[in-house]
């Protein structure tokens, strides 16, 4: 999963269906609009739309850029401000489809060659039809955005608190206590991993695994300390000195502080939330279910649970929007898949945490993997 756009707040091409209903890339044939197909040709100075009136329901705009500059195409609400659907970054001579589910009403279309200004606009009418269309629920969206930002900031805050304590214990040579806090602190990182990872300058310093390093790159961060605390599987390992412990500890603490100060300023769009939710599940599928993340401590199941926690929070925010837009069945399916996955995870709980990854049988790992894949498939359908 890649969330490199998240930090910059760049647009994701993926939107929640119904909200903006940009869901498919089906090929287009007709062009008079009667079957919901409209072709749009955007040149450097003109915007040719093959139909100005379509029946309510799904409409496909096949947008071709015949100009020399990058163009965009928008379907705007009656006020000319509300974006009903958009397709961005169409390079010269390329085509992109925009599929929107629109209720009857008055709209306008806009091509934006060069991506600047108001664009070349024209009126567009959607007539009443038998296809029912909901208009989306702005209140739910705003609620989800607020809740998610609060959650991420709170986790970051807790991460900083526990990391501070962890580093103190580690530097003081209280290894048993440090080992006990290791997974408990990292849980807060893992819950917001897709956000934390989106800072390309911090992530390699904080969360790099030994195998990820390139020649000459200094290994720092959580996993460097992890190896020092769980050296039994390491070959010819030399324990870090007190001075080295201080260096690595303070480095981690400094980076965690920087991360937290950045996260406290962030906001999230609904599609970023949905996308982040999916991203966390992909993190599980890729690194946790395989036991690669915590190579020395084998606390992968803590991370696993934390990724799922974060994904669930994102999903819970998006859920009312889904339901309001008539995707109740999908929401129900997702509810039960999350529950099934949690049930599987619960089987491996021990004390206030989890058993070691190395205690899992191959069959148990496969069951977990299948459950994550089942959920990933559905979250992919949401965004």
């Amino acid at each position, binding site marked *: 999963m*890649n969330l*490199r756009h998240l930090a910059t707040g760049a647009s994701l*091409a993926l939107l929640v269906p119904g909200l903006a209903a940009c869901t498919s890339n089906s090929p287009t044939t007709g062009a008079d609009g009667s079957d919901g197909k409209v072709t749009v040709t955007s040149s450097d100075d003109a915007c040719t739309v093959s139909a100005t009136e379509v029946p309510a329901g799904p409409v496909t705009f096949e947008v071709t850029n015949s100009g020399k500059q*990058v163009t965009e195409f928008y379907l705007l609400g009656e006020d000319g401000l509300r974006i009903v659907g958009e397709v*961005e970054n169409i390079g*010269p001579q*390329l085509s992109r489809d925009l599929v929107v589910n629109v209720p009857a009403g008055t709209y306008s279309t806009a091509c934006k060659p060069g991506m600047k200004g108001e664009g070349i606009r024209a009126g567009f009418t959607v007539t009443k039809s038998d296809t029912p269309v909901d208009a989306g629920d702005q209140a739910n969206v705003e609620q989800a955005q607020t809740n998610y930002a609060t959650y991420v900031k709170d986790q970051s805050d807790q991460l900083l608190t526990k990391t501070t304590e962890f580093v103190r214990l580690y530097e003081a040579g209280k290894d048993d206590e440090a080992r006990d806090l290791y997974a408990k602190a990292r849980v807060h990182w893992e819950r917001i991993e897709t956000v934390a990872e989106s800072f390309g300058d911090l992530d390699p310093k904080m969360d790099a695994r030994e195998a990820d*390093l390139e020649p000459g790159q200094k290994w720092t961060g959580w996993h460097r300390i992890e190896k020092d605390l769980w050296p039994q599987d390491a070959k010819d390992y030399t324990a870090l000195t007190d001075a080295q412990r201080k260096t690595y500890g303070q480095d981690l603490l400094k980076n965690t502080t920087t991360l937290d100060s950045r996260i406290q300023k962030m906001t999230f769009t609904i599609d970023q939330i949905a996308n982040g939710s999916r991203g966390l599940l992909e993190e599980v599928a890729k690194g946790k279910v395989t036991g690669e993340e915590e190579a020395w401590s084998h606390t992968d199941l803590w991370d696993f649970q934390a990724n799922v926690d974060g994904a669930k929070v994102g999903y819970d925010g998006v859920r009312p929007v889904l339901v309001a837009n008539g995707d109740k069945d999908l929401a129900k399916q997702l509810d039960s898949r999350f529950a099934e996955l949690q049930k599987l995870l619960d089987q491996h709980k021990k004390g206030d945490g989890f058993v070691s990854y190395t205690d899992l049988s191959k069959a148990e790992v496969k069951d977990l993997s299948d459950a994550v894949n089942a959920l990933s498939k559905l979250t992919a359908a949401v965004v």
Partner: protein
Amino acid sequence: MTEEETTESTSSGPSRRAMIGTGAVASAIGIAGGFTAGRATAAEPTKGAPPSPFALRGAHQPGITTPVQDRLHFAAFDVTTTSRARLISLLKEWTLAAERLMDGGPAGPIGPVEGDYRLPPDDTGEAIGLPPSRLTLTFGFGPGLFVDDEGKDRFGLADRRPEVLTDLPHFPGDQLDQARSRGDLCVQACADDPQVAVHAIRNLARIGFGTVSVRWSQLGFGRTSSTTAGQATPRNLFGFKDGTKNVLAEEAKALDEHVWVQPDDHGGDWLAGGSYLAVRRINMVIETWDRQGLGEQESLIGRTKDSGAPLSGGQEHDDPDFAMPGKDGPIVPKDSHVAVVHPDHNDGVRILRRGYNFVDGSTDLGTLDAGLFFLAYVRDPATQFVPMQNSMAKNDAMMEYLKFTGSALFAIPPGPAEGEYIGQTLFG
């Protein structure tokens, strides 16, 4: 007897017949020898098949700039003998066998069904009736042929090792399986028919028993690059066209600059006209990739999935415009694969890619053990491959979906001249 067989019978090492002599059926030696002489003409290409369009002998080995075929069997060998003479003898045998195989003939001079009933045939037979299938065989020498892991000279070749022929460094994202990495020798067999490629490797390995042992081998089933202008760019298992900017056979100047080792290059005294082959087994995290939106996939690659045009527009072979602004930053994202590995961002460096898709069944978790078996021919791995791989590991957003599980580097000697054996310039 043909010219080839004369050469073979005069070779000093364990020829096919000498090997029989040392085997359990020593008493059959006289009979087998006589029989062979009488049936030598049986070692002809399959009747009615078109002859191979490629020659083993020449300035360059086949299988580099020749039009890339659809199927691959690649094998890396450890040399098990300590005898330089036996190694040379094997190279002589392989040269003759390779020439016959590329012509659609049997691996040995007798044939799969023409020999003595009491002896195992000198060809395994699964290619009977199959055309040459444009088989090419390409041979290479790994760093381990020159010095062992302790730096000890193995065959009196240590001072002839080109300085850039060393094990590839550890790259970020490497999770190498040593059992799928390195090798003293390699053979790349490419053909239109997988059975023909497998037949070639199987028989070369059989001929090599006692001198070399297969370290690992890899099957590939779909080419992922083009090496000539007439070939369409194929797709990798991500579903995208990749390697569009490949060095092509028609670009003589670029080949000299980027692919063929030149006489003045280090090691050029024996390697000129040859090349280096960087081998990387790249597992793709297929299932995760498949859950990404089309737009996200395209921005990771930097090309459209449909035509393969760069996101800056136009057709597949149009140059990407990395300066063209998009909504947020360049329309071809800086961390897209095409932007990271493009010659414009790698000091103009180009490589000749010849990789294959592979699927080796599924993992314990039910995911595909699949990806790209990356093969790249370069004039200098230290300046062409290593920096590009490092830059990719560091900057390429696609890395998220890749795991590097095998790695090797080989020097590919020039093609043998008439009467020479493969690698003779090194040993001679």
